[in-house]
């Protein structure tokens, strides 16, 4: 016992000695979903962030970073607990990572109430974008509606007249259908809310067939989308009714899991692996090399989040205690996003471009996502006008 205590004391002394000269690292708490059907999303968010750290030798904006990653288990309650523990025990001030809007809605208010800062790499629920926006809440990904507004716009551009739309019955699902309808000019043949824990869509397939639409729009993130696409094919609907989706329903992982059936699906996205800018190429290459798989757009958002935090930390000289100073630097968005033009709107959500893309058969026979044309430029969100900061 005494021996072990001595050893620990010696180790602490050694750590103390080495840290004395260097700057104290800034702790970043990452709460993300690593288990369940959405587990790969959290994994990509974690890994995308890690690539940003790796490329800068464990620093962001020249400031050493200590990244703490914890799984929320796809449960809002657990997300809340993890945030609480990180802020109280580990003295974390800056948090990020949440994938799902229902978890964000439960967790983020606690972080902000305790004077923490939250930078979202994914979820952008509408309830935090309007009058309940917050000075210490930043979203680098998108406001939820944006994804689906772009899909609605794409469906209109592609000339579809009668759409059947589906999404899970939770905040992001409601934002999805609202967003799609805002920009789709045709008629809605049917509108269905599925359950977030649902994996069998047989009943919905029958409804789609009965409604006989000329296009289907669906939002089913993570494993849900894979199950949905496979059952769409099994029901014989693939090839009969084309599909227009937003990026979360057809990311790189979904496309490879679904295989052949994904070819021909129209999607819209704000970033894709084929984006032709040096930052994006560098990211894709580093990610591919380290993890031996293609990054999804989730990973790109997390990478951009790390760059945005890095730019802000650089401005404040590595300080997060003064949240107003951090906010001033953050809002400059003086990093070069790998999606291209990026700035924060008045509600601290992004203003960015949206692109149409299509799943095509790659040279090795596997489906790849190819970007085609821009569908929206400098697109913000409709909730910004209600936000008074």
């Amino acid at each position: 016992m005494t021996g072990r205590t001595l050893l620990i004391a010696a180790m602490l002394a050694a750590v103390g000695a080495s840290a004395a000269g260097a700057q104290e690292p800034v702790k970043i708490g990452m709460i993300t979903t690593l288990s369940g059907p959405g587990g790969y999303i959290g994994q990509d968010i974690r890994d995308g962030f890690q690539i940003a750290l790796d490329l800068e030798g464990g620093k962001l904006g020249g400031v050493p970073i200590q990244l703490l990653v914890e799984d929320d288990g796809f449960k809002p309650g657990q997300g809340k607990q993890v945030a609480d523990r990180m802020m109280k025990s580990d003295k974390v001030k800056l948090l990020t990572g949440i994938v799902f809007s229902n978890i964000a809605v439960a967790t983020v208010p606690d972080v902000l109430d305790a004077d923490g800062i939250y930078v979202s790499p994914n979820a952008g629920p509408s309830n935090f974008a309007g009058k309940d926006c917050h000075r210490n809440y930043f979203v680098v990904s998108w406001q939820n509606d944006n994804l689906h507004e772009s899909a609605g716009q794409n469906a209109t551009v592609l000339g579809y007249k009668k759409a059947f739309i589906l999404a899970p019955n939770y905040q992001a699902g409601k934002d999805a259908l609202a967003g799609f309808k805002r920009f789709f000019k045709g008629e809605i043949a049917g509108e269905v809310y599925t359950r977030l824990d649902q994996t069998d869509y047989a009943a919905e397939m029958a409804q789609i067939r009965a409604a006989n639409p000329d296009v289907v729009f669906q939002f089913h993130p993570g494993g849900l989308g894979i199950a949905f696409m496979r059952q769409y094919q099994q029901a014989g609907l693939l090839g009969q009714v084309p599909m227009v989706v937003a990026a979360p329903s057809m990311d790189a992982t979904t496309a490879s899991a679904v295989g052949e059936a994904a070819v021909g699906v129209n999607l819209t996205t704000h970033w894709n692996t084929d984006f032709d800018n040096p930052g994006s190429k560098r990211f894709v290459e580093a990610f591919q090399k380290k993890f031996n798989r293609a990054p999804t757009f989730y990973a790109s958002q997390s990478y951009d989040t790390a760059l945005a935090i890095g730019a802000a930390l650089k401005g404040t000289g590595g300080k997060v205690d003064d949240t107003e100073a951090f906010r001033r630097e953050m809002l400059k968005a003086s990093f070069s996003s790998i999606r291209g033009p990026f700035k924060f709107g008045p509600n601290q959500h992004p203003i960015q471009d949206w692109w149409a893309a299509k799943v095509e058969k790659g040279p090795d026979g596997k489906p790849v996502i190819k970007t085609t044309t821009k569908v929206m430029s400098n697109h913000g969100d409709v909730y910004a006008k209600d936000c008074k900061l």
Partner: protein
Amino acid sequence: MVLVYEQVLNGLQLGVTLFLLAAGLTLIFGIMGVINLAHGSLYMVGAYAAALTAAKIGSFLLAVPAGLAAAALAGMAMEYLVIRHLYARDHLDQVLATFGLILFFNQAVVLLVGRQPLFVAIPAALDGAVPVGAGIQYPVYRLAILAVGIAVAIGLYLLIGRTRLGMLVRAGATHRDMVRALGVDIRLLYTIVFGLGALLAGLAGLMAGPLLAVQVGMGEQILILTFVVVVIGGLGSIRGAFFGALIVGVVDTLLRAFLPGALRTVMQGSEADALGAGLSSMGVYLLMAAVLLVRPRGLFPAHG
């Protein structure tokens, strides 16, 4: 009308999957008096064993025996190592211990296979859709599940009603002490029944694999519905499990399909959808409550 027909088919298919799980659960409860929360874990074990075998050797049909064997062996090991010590304890101890088993199985799968869901291809012979009348194309694989489920129901009926083993099972359920007094090795009987229940759960799991994603925690999602089935059908009754499962499957599917539409005729679109989605997820629980009010022991009480 055509849509109702197709939705009823979907409901029946969900029903037989529930039946395979509920049959084991209700047998184990009826005969041993054990509430086994970890029954869903056996479903998961069957699904994983089949998915991994299919990925390794590339044939789903060969993966079937692997999934069945893995689930049955896991079930018998569970009985031998844990459940056997719980027969004399009260239900709270059983619930706690089997809840612990759920955590154990989930973490074991995370450690062995990882968190990524697995996807199983549908065997080529069962891929595609066939006409089933009224102009409906219905997936062959779902019809196959329906056929397997009905075959198992008939087989179980014959096994319980017509064989010596079935006689012992029935006797064990109603007159446990008398069976023991007559010199039957009741411990072996229990292990066999538990293994059989596990085998059926594994069968349900491996058949669900190609439709859904094979993932950690898949058992708990369906276990709750299975308990509803067992309660509606009557604890310990195979016949109850069969009809309970079909009722729950069809009611759940039909509510999900038609309630939002029906509500939309009387109220505004988005509100109707939100209310409809909420009410249809509650539907089977309301049904359970209604059944319990009228028939407190379920629709087909097992004995006495």
